[in-house]
């Protein structure tokens, strides 16, 4: 197989583009896709300071690398989630990447700063770990961006992620989520702008970017991801893609151009009732504390109660 651009031997085939590329031309292809996404959706303006949410996985490290290659002023934000070996390893990959390239990495360790970890929060709230995890990530990304004076938060969601989330939302007609599933959410009501510059790249491409650029990333999955619905949707979509290349791209981009506008009014109405959280000042639709402050308080109460029970037992025993 030969490279479509230069006719040298190809390293990767991308069937939805009916193309194959050699390593240098593949890098060019990826950069062009990201540039196109940024321009098409007005993601980052000249002089904007970008905060990249990095996890140590392929997507976020590729994104950071690409934004820097494109000349953007982009720092990284890593959240310590306290998920055993997965978290300690992911920190190692992230720090090595930042140090090797002389990039600025901001770290927020949830256990140290807020006194709980994601598995612990899941036990206390009796919900899946991803629920406390997602809530904490959203909150802390916003907070770090506002505190650090960043204009925009960039996340590594790729075409496969967006197509899988869309698939799940359509299966259950989650109209509120459909209204918010956009590659750019503008800054509003105290939230920074949020952008997904990788929406034109599949995860096979972001992984290939890392391999070809020599980026060592965490291949192992978070233990809480194993067997979740999101993975099932991705597998189903990949079976369709295999039979009909380009299906995922059409599914997502046709949604954006033809359907998403029918769902935005509802999403906007929800934003209207926002007020500042009495604990941290973050915008929230809740009465007093925002969802994150409630979570922190709830875990603290559970920990105190447990300590009291233990002390009681020690006293009587």
């Amino acid at each position, binding site marked *: 197989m030969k490279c479509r651009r230069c006719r040298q031997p*190809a390293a990767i085939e991308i069937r939805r583009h009916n193309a194959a590329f050699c390593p240098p031309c593949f890098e060019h292809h990826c950069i062009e896709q990201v540039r196109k996404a940024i321009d098409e959706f007005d993601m980052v303006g000249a002089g904007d300071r970008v905060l990249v949410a990095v996890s140590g996985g392929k997507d976020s490290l590729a994104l950071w690398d690409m934004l820097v290659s494109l000349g953007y002023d982009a720092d990284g934000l890593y959240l310590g989630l306290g998920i055993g070996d997965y978290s300690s390893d992911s920190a190692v990959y992230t720090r090595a990447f930042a140090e090797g390239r002389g990039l600025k990495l901001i770290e927020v360790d949830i256990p140290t700063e807020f006194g709980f970890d994601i598995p612990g929060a899941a036990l206390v709230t009796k919900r899946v770990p991803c629920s406390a995890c997602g809530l904490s990530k959203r909150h802390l990304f916003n907070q770090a961006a506002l505190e650090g004076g960043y204009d925009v938060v960039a996340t590594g969601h790729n075409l496969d992620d967006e197509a899988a989330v869309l698939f799940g939302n359509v299966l259950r007609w989650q109209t509120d989520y459909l209204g918010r599933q956009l590659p750019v959410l503008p800054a509003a009501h105290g939230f920074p702008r949020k952008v997904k510059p990788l929406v034109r790249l*599949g995860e096979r491409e972001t992984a290939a970017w890392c*391999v*070809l650029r020599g980026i060592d990333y965490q291949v192992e999955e978070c233990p809480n991801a194993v067997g979740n619905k*999101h993975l099932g949707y991705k597998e189903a979509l990949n079976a369709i893609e*295999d039979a009909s290349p380009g299906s995922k791209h059409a599914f997502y981009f046709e949604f954006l151009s033809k359907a998403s506008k029918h769902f935005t009014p509802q999403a906007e109405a929800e934003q209207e009732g926002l007020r500042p959280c009495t604990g941290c000042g973050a915008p929230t639709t809740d009465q007093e504390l925002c969802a994150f402050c409630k979570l922190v308080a709830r875990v603290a109460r559970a920990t105190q109660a447990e300590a009291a029970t233990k002390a009681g037992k020690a006293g009587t025993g």
Partner: protein
Amino acid sequence: MKVLLRNPKREVDVPGPLRVSALLERLAVNRESVLVIKGDTLVTGDAVLADADTVEVRPVISGGA
């Protein structure tokens, strides 16, 4: 050839020479969901792997939300 697989990490021996596409079929993996890595580069589906080669078949699907 030696084939390194992930999740769980393991190694299998597959006799070569063999085309990458045939290897993936034999392993029953969807070509959309993996990369085939040889040394520090990638190989396409039509590449022929020799019996002495070592390759990694790396899944690219992540489940994090």
